[in-house]
């Protein structure tokens, strides 16, 4: 599933990168090789800051911005600088986020578009996975396509879920943290989305967060919190329910 394109003759400059798909990272990669971890055949690729029109099944879109720390010159001469952000692939009518890595200076470096959790995909290469923490009456659990934080009892009613590893905020320039949830019951402090350096616990609301937002409204909604002033340090991302019940479907940053 390689797509290595070199222009020959006509005065055009050869490409200074390669894009390859597959479930195993290529051995002995050249500088600026981009590997997209996918078991779906890659039928083509494009670099773009905006969504391609009329994509075909299997197309890989390398999203670009102007801040990526993994920029490279796309041409061997007369440099055309590309700032890759992340890789998505067009599968069954929608864009699927894929693990993407670029080989630079002897290392594979992840390309990340900001997703932390999506309908069962835990983005382990960023988060290390997610773990639920329950107090004595907490009944939170991880399911195939969502995470529940909830309780059943009269005391010890906290339930939370944390990323297993901290996210390094110095490597990215996201301004907002989001979570798409369905809050089915609200009690006490409701449901909280937080960013914290403190060790995981069943409570997020009381767990010394650097940033947090809480909702006491039931129903499907998107929680959002401003993280634009956090540009250094490593933090867990967490959601917690304080005598409340909620289902979590997506967590991401933009």
């Amino acid at each position, binding site marked *: 599933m390689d797509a290595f394109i070199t222009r020959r003759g006509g005065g055009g400059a050869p490409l200074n990168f390669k894009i390859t798909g597959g479930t195993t990272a290529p051995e002995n990669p050249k500088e600026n090789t981009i590997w997209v971890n996918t078991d779906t055949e890659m039928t083509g690729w494009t670099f773009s800051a905006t969504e391609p029109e009329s994509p075909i099944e299997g197309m890989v879109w390398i999203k670009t911005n102007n801040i990526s720390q993994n920029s490279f010159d796309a041409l061997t001469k007369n440099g055309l600088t590309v700032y890759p952000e992340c890789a998505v692939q067009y599968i069954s009518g929608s864009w699927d986020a894929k693990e993407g890595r670029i080989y630079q200076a002897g290392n594979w470096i992840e390309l990340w578009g900001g997703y932390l959790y999506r309908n069962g995909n835990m983005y382990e290469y960023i988060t290390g996975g997610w773990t639920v923490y329950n107090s004595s009456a907490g009944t939170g659990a991880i399911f195939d396509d969502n995470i529940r934080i909830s309780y059943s009892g009269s005391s010890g009613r906290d339930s939370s879920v944390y990323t297993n590893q901290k996210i390094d905020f110095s490597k990215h320039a996201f301004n907002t943290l989001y979570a798409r949830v369905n809050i089915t019951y609200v009690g006490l402090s409701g449901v909280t989305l937080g960013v914290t350096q403190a060790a995981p616990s069943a409570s997020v609301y009381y767990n010394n967060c650097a940033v947090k*937002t809480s909702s006491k409204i039931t129903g499907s909604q998107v929680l959002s*919190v401003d993280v634009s002033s956090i540009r250094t340090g490593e933090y867990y991302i967490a959601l917690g329910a304080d005598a409340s019940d909620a289902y979590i479907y997506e967590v991401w940053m933009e």
Partner: protein
Amino acid sequence: MTVYIDSDFRCHVENDGTMTPVETDFFDGKCNEWIEGYRFVPDGERWTREDGRVFRGEMLAPWKPFGELDAAQRAYERAQLADMRAALELLGVNADE
């Protein structure tokens, strides 16, 4: 504790007469520089960031670079610890006992 928020939801430790008092334990133990580097959007309120994104309360987020606030808080805690040790020494108590 009581903090005071201005029209942009920025926190202050003193009220200049135009601010709204809010009760929160989020800032318990925090120095003034930390507190005044934060924005507190109460439940039911909305704040619009410069880029147009709207955030619903309750939200607590720094508006100053968090690294600076963290450094100020650590310095504050070190100073408090030094004061406590000096007080114990004055009382003739070995702080390490």
